[in-house]
C-alpha cells in the first residue's frame, strides 16, 4: 500500500516538473494555491465516498446530494443565519446518506441501483424546489469559507487538512476503521467474526452523505450562488480521484491520503491543460487515460486476487 502511495506522489512530482518546464504560469504561489483549493473541494466530496468504496460499495448520488444540500442551505442562510444554513446542508446530506444506507442494508438493494435511483429522486426534488431560480449574494464572512484565505492559505485547504487528519485517525486507528476495511475485504467473514456489518455500512453511507453536505457549503461559498445543477458535474471527478488514488472498487484496499493525492493529480492535469490552452474537448480523454494508467500500475504491481466483491452486489 505504501508503495502505491509512493508511486503516486512520484507521479505528482513528475507532473509538476513537466508543467514547470512547459509554462511560466505554473510554478507561482497563487497558481499552486488555486490548485490546492480546487483539489481540496474535490477531496472533501470524495472523502466520504472513499469510505463507502472501502466496503466494496458505491455512492453515485453525491453530485445530486451536493445540489440539494447547497440549495437548502442557500434558502436557510437567506431566511436566517449562516449557522442555520450549515446545519441545514449537513442535515440534508446526512439524511440522503442514511436513506442510501437504509436501502443497502435493510432493503437489500444493490448500492449501484440504490444510489443511482437516489440520484434521480434527489435531482427531481432539487429541480422542483428551485423552480429554475438562482439564489445569490451571500454574506462576506460566509463566502470566505470557499474563496477566502487564512494565514495565506485558502480556507478549504484547512478543511481538507482537518478532514484528512480526522479521517486518517478514523480509518487507521479506530475499531470502526478496521471493521470497515474488514467488511470490504470479505463481508461474510466480517459478519461471522461478529462485526456489526449493517451498522458500519449505515455509518459509511451516512458519512458519505454528510461529507457531500459539507462540501456543498464550501461550493456554495465559493460560487456565491445556488442553482439546481450545482452538483451535476461533481460526481465523476470525485470517483476518478478515488480510483486514481488507489482505492479498490472490490473493497478493503485504499486510503484517504490516496484519494487526496488522486484529487491533486487530476486537478494538476486540468490546471495544466488550462494554462497550456489545450481545448476543453481533450479533457475527458486525458482524464480517462490517467485513471486507467493509475489503476493499471496498481494492478500490475499488486497482482490483486480475483474479485471478492463488487460495487453492484447487494449486501
Amino acid at each position, binding site marked *: 500500500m505504501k508503495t502505491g502511495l509512493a508511486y503516486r506522489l512520484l507521479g505528482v512530482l513528475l507532473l509538476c516538473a513537466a508543467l514547470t518546464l512547459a509554462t511560466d504560469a505554473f510554478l507561482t504561489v497563487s497558481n499552486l494555491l488555486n490548485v490546492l483549493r480546487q483539489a481540496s473541494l474535490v477531496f472533501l466530496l470524495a472523502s466520504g465516498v472513499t469510505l463507502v468504496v472501502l466496503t466494496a460499495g458505491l455512492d453515485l448520488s453525491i453530485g445530486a446530494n451536493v445540489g440539494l444540500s447547497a440549495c437548502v442551505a442557500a434558502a436557510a442562510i437567506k431566511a436566517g443565519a449562516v449557522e442555520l444554513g450549515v446545519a441545514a446542508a449537513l442535515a440534508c446530506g446526512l439524511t440522503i446518506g442514511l436513506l442510501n444506507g437504509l436501502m443497502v442494508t435493510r432493503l437489500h438493494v444493490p448500492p449501484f441501483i440504490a444510489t443511482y435511483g437516489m440520484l434521480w429522486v434527489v435531482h427531481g426534488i432539487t429541480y422542483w424546489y428551485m423552480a429554475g431560480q438562482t439564489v445569490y449574494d451571500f454574506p462576506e464572512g460566509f463566502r470566505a469559507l470557499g474563496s477566502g484565505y487564512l494565514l495565506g492559505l485558502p480556507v478549504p485547504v484547512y478543511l481538507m487538512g482537518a478532514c484528512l487528519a480526522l479521517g486518517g485517525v478514523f480509518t487507521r486507528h479506530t475499531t470502526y476503521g478496521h471493521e470497515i476495511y474488514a467488511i470490504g475485504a470479505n463481508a461474510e467473514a466480517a459478519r461471522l467474526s461478529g462485526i456489526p456489518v449493517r451498522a458500519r455500512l449505515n455509518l459509511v453511507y451516512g458519512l458519505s452523505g454528510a461529507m457531500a453536505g459539507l462540501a456543498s457549503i464550501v461550493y456554495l461559498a465559493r460560487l456565491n450562488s445556488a442553482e439546481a445543477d450545482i452538483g451535476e458535474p461533481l460526481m465523476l471527478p470525485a470517483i476518478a480521484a478515488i480510483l486514481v488514488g488507489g482505492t479498490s472498487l472490490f473493497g478493503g484496499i485504499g486510503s484517504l491520503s490516496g484519494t487526496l493525492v488522486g484529487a491533486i493529480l487530476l486537478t494538476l492535469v486540468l490546471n495544466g491543460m488550462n494554462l497550456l490552452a489545450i481545448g476543453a474537448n*481533450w479533457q475527458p480523454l486525458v482524464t480517462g487515460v490517467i485513471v486507467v494508467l493509475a489503476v493499471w500500475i496498481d494492478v500490475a504491481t499488486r497482482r490483486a486476487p480475483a474479485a471478492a466483491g463488487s460495487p453492484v452486489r447487494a449486501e
Partner: protein
Amino acid sequence: MPSTGRLTRARALPGVAYLLVVLLVVFSIFGGGFASVPNLLNIGVQSSVLLLLALPMTLIIMSEGLDLSMGALLGLAGVVLAMQLAAGLPLPLALAAALGVGAAFGLANGVLVVALGIPPFVATLGTLGVAQGAALVATGGQSVVGIGGALPALYASAWLGVPFSILVAGLVYLTFHVILYHTRFGTYVFAIGGNREALVLAGVHANLYHVGIYGLGGVMAGVAALLLTGRMNSGHPTAALGMEFDAIAAVIVGGTSFERGNGWLPGTLLGVLAVGVLRNGLNVMAVSSSLQVASIGLLVIVALLIDSARDKTRDKTRDKR
C-alpha cells in the same frame, strides 16, 4: 457443459414486471391517447436504442463486469457514421466503419479487463473518456449534418406497419436470445460469471470469450448508432451520454445480477420497456418535469424493493419448513 445458474421458464417474474403492468393500466386509464397504436409504437421506437445497449450489457453484467463506455461509444460511432455518410460513402460501408470503431473500443475494454486485470468500472471509465474525447475533438462539440437521404429513408421505413427501429430491436433481441440460450458462446457466458475455473479446467479459452463479450458490446453500440443517427438525421458526440447507466439499471431491475452468472434476457426487455412506458406515460399525462425525474429514480428503487420483499418472504417460508 456447466449449467450453473441457467434459468428455466419456471423463474419468478421480477418486480418490474408487475410495475410495468400497473403503469400500463394506469396510463391507459388516465393518459388520453396513451393506449393508441401510434403511441405504443412510439414507445417501441423510443426504447429501441436503449434495448440495443441493454442486451449486451446483460451479458457483460452476467460475467461480473459492467461497461460505462457505451454511451460515449454510441456517440463516437454515430459521429463516424455521420461523417462517412457526409463524405459520400454508401450506407453499408459507413455502417461498417461505425461498427468497426465500436468493435475496436469494445475489444479494448475486453483486453483491459481480461488481460490487464483492470476492474471493469475503471477500464470502461477510461474508454469512456477516450471515446468522448475523440468524438468531441473530431466534431468540436457540434452535430455532423448533411448525411444524405439513404439513412433517413431507411429509418423512416416500416414493414407491415412496424417501424424500422422496432424491427431492428426485435431482430437483435432474437439474435441475443439464440446466442445466450442456444450456443456454446452463451453457455460460456453463464460459466464465466458463474464458475470460471471450471471452464478453464475444461480447456476452454475463457479469456477469449470474455473479451468477446465486451467486443459484442462495442459492436452493438455501432448498431445503436445507426438508429440514433437516423433519428436525429445527424451524428452528435454527446447525445447518448449517460445511457449506459440507464442500460445497467434496466438490466439489474430485470433480474440479472452480478452473482453467479445469473442472467435473464426477457427481464432486460421488461426493464427497458418499463422505463420507456414510464417516460412516455408521464409525458402523455403532462406530469411536471421535476416529478418525472424523481419518478424515474423511484421506478428503479421500487422494482428492487418488490424483489427483495419477495425474496425475504420466500426465505422465511422456506425456513419454516
